[in-house]
Structure formats: C-alpha cells, structure tokens
C-alpha cells in the first residue's frame, strides 16, 4: 500500500527545546489523521514541517513516495500539492473573498481569471457563501472567514489538506459550520491531517487518532480505541482533563 504522506523519524528542535522527537507517521489516501494533545505537544509544528514552513533537523518526510525534506526540492512546487488552514484564518484583508480564493489558481497554477472565478464561485455556493464573494474578510464572521480560508486552500486542488486547530479561535456557536465542511470533505475522500481539540468531531472523522506528548506519538489507533479506551496513562490523564473542561 502506498501512502500520500509518510514521516520517518522526524526530529525538530527550536534551540534547546526538542519539539518533535523521532516521530513517525503514515497517512494513506482518503483517510483523516487526527492529532490530539496538549498545547505545546508539537501538533502545529508537525503540520508546519509537513508544509515546509519549518525545516526538520533529522528524519524524512515523503509526499507520494517522494522525499520533500530534501533541501534541494522546489518548495513552491510541494506547497502547491498541500492545502493549509490556520487557526487564525489568515485571509488577505486587502482582497475580497473571491480575490482571496482566486489568487493562487491564477498566479501559481496559471489559470485564467475567468476560469478561476467560476471555480471559486462554485465552491462558494457549495458551502453557502455565494453572497459573500465580493465582501472583504473583515465584514465576515469568524466562522465565515474560516470557511473561506478552507475554500481558498481547496481552490488549488491539494493532494493533502493540513488543518491546524481551525476552530480554536471561534465562538462555540460558529464551530459547527466550519466542522461540517471538513466532514463533507472527508466524505468526498479528501486526505487530511488535522490538529484539533474537538474530541467529538475527531470521533466522527478520524481514521486514525494520534496522541502527541513532548514531540512524540504516545498512542495511536482508531478513534474508538484511543478516545474511548486509552491504554497509555498519559493519554488517560489528557482525556480526563479534556473531559473536565467539557470538550468530550
């Protein structure tokens, strides 16, 4: 079986602090891998390393069997195959919703403006945002902004979608409208890796759940196994705290 993404013994440190320690992970096609763990456990760094926003200190990252952690690789070409959505949306405030979405298809993929606009509008209508096409991001609610950010990353037809705590900056009532898009994408067979604190949502979409602690995966398996019957005492402790915070 071939994997879309494969991490072999990845290590990353910032100065003295080791953030990822000998971490290995495989992501098969059409699956969703959910990363859980406390803040600072390395989830975001892992996603940023996959997207080559950070360079790793050791190990290998392979995308469709090709090593992308090679320093000689064209990073822009790799990133065209990866969609990334951030916790803080990061929409471009000086561009309208439609311009945010069509920027990369036009400038990176060389599509015509017309073609890109048609594709963007189709995505917007699919996720009930057609009427926001000509608005600027600051006129939108947080949930709408994050949905636009997801659509923007989908517009380049990524091979793999990376979602970094995409609901953490949202009002609780807005969380679901964002998560339902991700559920739809999962249903369509999109391959994704996501970091989240929403355990209920993790149960619904995850093919594999990985519990990260101090830069390593301490426990991995189906959502049922990791979230309902964790065996590692640290996972149990983490889930207990999440439960107390009312997030399970």
């Amino acid at each position: 079986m071939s994997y879309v993404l494969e991490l072999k013994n990845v290590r990353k440190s910032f100065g003295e602090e080791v953030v990822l320690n000998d971490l290995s992970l495989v992501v098969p096609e059409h699956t969703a891998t959910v990363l859980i763990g406390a803040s600072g456990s390395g989830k975001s760094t892992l996603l940023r390393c996959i997207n080559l926003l950070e360079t790793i200190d050791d190990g290998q990252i392979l995308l469709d069997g090709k090593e992308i952690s090679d320093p000689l690789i064209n990073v822009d070409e790799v990133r065209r195959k990866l969609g990334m959505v951030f916790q803080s949306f990061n929409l471009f405030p000086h561009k309208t919703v439609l311009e945010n979405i069509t920027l990369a298809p036009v400038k990176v993929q060389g599509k015509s403006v017309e073609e890109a606009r048609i594709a963007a509008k189709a995505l917007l209508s699919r996720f009930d945002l057609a009427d926001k096409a000509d608005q600027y991001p600051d006129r939108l609610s947080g949930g709408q902004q994050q949905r636009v950010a997801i659509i923007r990353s989908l517009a380049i037809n990524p091979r793999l979608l990376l979602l970094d705590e995409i609901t953490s900056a949202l009002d609780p009532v807005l969380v679901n409208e964002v998560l339902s898009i991700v559920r739809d994408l999962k249903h369509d067979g999109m391959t994704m890796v996501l970091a989240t604190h929403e355990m209920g949502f993790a149960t619904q979409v995850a093919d594999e759940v990985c519990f990260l602690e101090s830069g390593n995966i301490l426990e991995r398996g189906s959502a049922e196994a990791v979230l309902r019957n964790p065996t590692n005492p640290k996972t149990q402790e983490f889930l207990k705290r999440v439960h107390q915070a009312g997030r399970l």
Partner: protein
Amino acid sequence: MTERNNSAWSPSSRELERQGSRRAINRKQVFIAAVSSLLVLGTLALVLVTSPGWQTVKSTFFDVEYGKEVFPTVIRGLWINLQLTFIGGAAIGVIALGLALLRTTKSPTLTPFRFLATAYVDIFRGAPLILIILLVGFGVPALGLKGISSNVIFLGTVAVVLTYSAYVAEVIRSGILSIHPSQRAAARSLGLSSGQTMRYVVLPQAIRRVVPPLLNDFVSLLKDTGLVSILGVTDAVRAAQINASRTFNYTPYVVAAILFLLITIPMTRYTDRAIRQRTNAQSAEGAI
C-alpha cells in the same frame, strides 16, 4: 437578525429632558471657548501692536502695496517649487520602493545590493539636506563629466531626491516589516513564491499602512524644495530674497511664507484626516 424599526419610536419625556440638558451643556461650552479664544488672541494682538517697534515691523514686513507688487515673481518661483515637488516626488517613490525591497530581501544574489542599499540609507539619512544640495550642486559640475547636466534646477532636484528616497525607503520598509508573518505563511502555503508573496500580499497592505506618514513626507518635501534656492534657482524663496535685498523691505518673505502655507495647510489637514480614518478602520478590523 430581527427587523429594527426606528420610525415608530418617539422619545420618552425622560429622554427629552436629557436632550435639553445636553444642549445646555453644549451652549455653555461654546460660550467658554469663545471667551477664552477672544482673550488669548486679543492679548497676543495687543502685545504685538503696542510693542515699540510695531510701526517699523509693519512697514518692512507687512507692506500690502509692496506685497502686491512682488506677488507675481514670488508665485512664478513657487511654480518651480511645485514642479520640483511633483517630479522629485515621483522619482523618490520609485527609488525608495527599490531600496526598501532590497533592504528586506533575503535573496543571496542580491546580497551586495542589500549592503549597498543599507549604506545608501545610512549616508543620506544622516547628512543634512543642505550639505547634500551644496555638494551635488557644486561638486558634480566640478567633475566635468560629459553628458551630466550642470543645470542647477536639475542638480538641486537630484540632491533632494537622494536624501528623501533614503527617508521614504525607511518608511516603506517599516510598513513591510509591520505585516504579520502569518500573512506570508498563508501566501507561501498556497504555493506563491517569495516574490509573488511580496507583490500580491505584503506590499499592497504595507503601502496602505504607510500612506499617512508618506503624505507627511510629501509636505516636508514641498517645503524643503525651498533649499535649492542656495544654488541660485529662482524658486519662491529666492525670488523673495532678490526682491527683499533690492529694497530692504521683507514683505516678499511674508508673501512666500503665506503662499507655502496656503498649499501645506490643506495638505496637512488632509493627512491628519487620512491618519484618523486609518486608525478607525484598523480598530474596526481588530488585530490585523
């Protein structure tokens, strides 16, 4: 959201009473402001007019008839200042943008240029403009280079452009650095190259952010074009000087000052408004 209709609302008696109180407070404040303004300005005027030298000052600085006589030559000079400002301003914009981009680039091929740009900014921001004007105005013709004009207007403009592009480059660079790294991360993660990220994402936001300080520099530029008069360019300052030294009446200076103010005051008012709008817009946008 529910429909809100304001047309059916009529203020309660309590609200009417409050509106009355607000009007009363307002009237009182206007009255106090008027009285205090009258007092302060009146005292100043009185001190000026009753001073022992007032009659002499009035005839040598505020001679209305002489002012009218020199007005055409001074305003012809001012036209030179305006031309210098607009032509120089365009050149400054282009050069400063180039310098700012060079100073923020990480490209290894451009390393020597980055170094040169930094040296350039250090030198021209650190030296007084008047010295640069003298050095360029008298130094460049002395070199005797072929094809380089020794026209004083041209050399004066070059000197002003050299100095101002260093200042403006720093303003643009601060704008570029003020854009949050997450914007760059978002653009790069979409596959945009670093050049495309700068051009389509960072620079448009940075320029918008520095428009108010740039307008400020534009006002300074207009005033500083007066310094090229030391090279013998017949701008507004020089025209006033010629007339003043001919008659020992300094009214031409006052005429020149008033003409400059007539242009710069509306410009500064506009700048202030632009800054205010920018600040309001930013607070509405939140963190960006």
